[in-house]
């Protein structure tokens, strides 16, 4: 009997069941594990009961409408985006104090998880720089930092870091107010001692940016040692000076034709 004749092979396999099972086990496990990190059914997102909510919760007044339009303009896109944003700011500055009071109130009321909107409101307070809101902005800048730990394996969201960014922007607002209201200087010196490095840096930069740098550096030295200032870092870096990754270029051409399964934009949409 020739060893490679079909019947011979079959007979041989039947006589050696262990090999058969080894093959079956190997193939089975390969197939199973090949998909062990793949996902089965897709997630489903329900939006039928969603109510579109104004995250800024502003009053239905003329100024409230102006602020809503301003926040929209802040995230605009296109060649006129910046000029329209600046025009909106100029309109708001015509009612600087009233507008700033509305914004600081909205910021105080905003839900915690509205990180982006809160940051944008803080940025607007910086642009408005109204001394009338100084005390309330300072209280926001002092908000205790939340626990900044990664949550689960799906990382990259750190509530404490989001809070830190909002606080840093409010410190920048205080620095702007300090240009016209000397009482804000003292608050900057206090915030310069904050444990949060991002908050402390904004306070130090804002304080030193008020002029008479030599004298202010001495004042700063009475509350912070030079090692802490060095650790914080206060000198702006040119991004062209930082080390840059040097990756090989890949040649991946643009697709020649429309993908078969991309979603359709209807005439009504465009």
């Amino acid at each position, binding site marked *: 009997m020739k060893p490679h004749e079909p019947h011979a092979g079959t007979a041989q396999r039947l006589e050696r069941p262990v090999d058969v099972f080894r093959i079956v086990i190997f193939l089975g496990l390969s197939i199973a594990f090949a*998909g062990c990190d793949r*996902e089965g059914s897709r997630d*489903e997102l329900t939006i039928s009961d969603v109510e579109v909510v104004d995250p800024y919760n502003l009053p239905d007044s003329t100024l409230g409408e102006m602020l809503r339009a301003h926040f929209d303009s802040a995230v605009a*896109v*296109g060649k006129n985006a910046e000029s329209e944003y600046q025009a909106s700011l100029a309109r708001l500055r015509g009612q600087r104090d009233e507008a700033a009071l509305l914004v600081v109130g909205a910021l105080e009321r905003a839900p915690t998880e509205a990180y982006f909107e809160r940051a944008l409101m803080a940025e607007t307070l910086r642009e408005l720089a109204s001394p009338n809101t100084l005390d309330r902005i300072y209280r926001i800048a002092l908000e205790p930092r939340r626990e900044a730990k990664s949550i689960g394996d799906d990382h990259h969201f750190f509530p404490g*870091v989001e809070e830190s960014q909002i606080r840093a922007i409010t410190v920048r607002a205080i620095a702007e107010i300090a240009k016209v209201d000397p009482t804000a200087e003292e608050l900057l010196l206090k915030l310069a001692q904050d444990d949060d490095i991002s908050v402390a840096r904004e306070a130090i930069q804002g304080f030193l940016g008020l002029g008479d740098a030599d004298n202010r550096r001495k004042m700063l030295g009475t509350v912070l040692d030079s090692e802490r200032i060095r650790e914080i870092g*206060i000198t702006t870096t040119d991004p062209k000076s930082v080390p840059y*990754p040097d*990756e090989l270029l890949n040649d991946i051409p643009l*697709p020649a034709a429309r993908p078969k399964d991309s979603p359709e934009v209807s005439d009504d949409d465009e």
Partner: protein
Amino acid sequence: MMTNKHPSIVFVTPLLATILLVQVAHGATCTIPSSRVSTNESLYTSRTCNQAFIDMVWAHFDFDKGDWDQGFGFHDPCNSIRPLSRTFNALWLLAYSAEDYATSTSDWSGNALRWGYPYSASKIDELNGRCGDGTAIARTWWGGWIFVDDRTNLYLSFFYNWSISARAGTIVHEARHAAGKGHNGGDDCPRGGSCDEKWTTYGANTYQVLYLWWYYVDGTRTTTALRNLAATRAQSIIDNGFVEKPPYVIN
């Protein structure tokens, strides 16, 4: 009768069945948090609601209908309440914020603002919309042969907690993971997770900072507000995302 079966099958069959059952587990169901839905992005959607643009990103990032239907926006790609539209908005910002934006995914020249899109398009294997646990932003699997399906999942917090520029920076971050670079700093940085050892390991945090930094410095077709917020985020990553804090100050 058991006596007619090879002993291995007694153990292997339940094992295989278990593994296969785990694979076909049902997907999650989630609801968009209503307080997180704003109408702000309608201005971006006016740009991304364009068949040619959608077709381009659909191909570059290997989107699949099955990963973006069931509420995620496949059937309503111009609705900025839906995750798909909000992802398109971030990709638009990623693609076109440089004055001389790249017109080919093979063009990685210039600064990070310019190569952010082509780099991400080249590295990300597929981009999926998912629910997540309510706090997750994104996760990338990479390096798979037959054991791992290379992919990047985007979760609810990506769509609804972050600005468009922050989302664009996250895509660059995830693209670096997709290129095979994981975080190597454990939890030893100030934020306690997703830490890179240092700037010059050129991990995902370095890439994300570079993109946001250059968006702040050179970003066009956008506003000072978004650029300032990008700078704040980039500085925050510098301050909190590295074991050995880079000595850089953005502004």
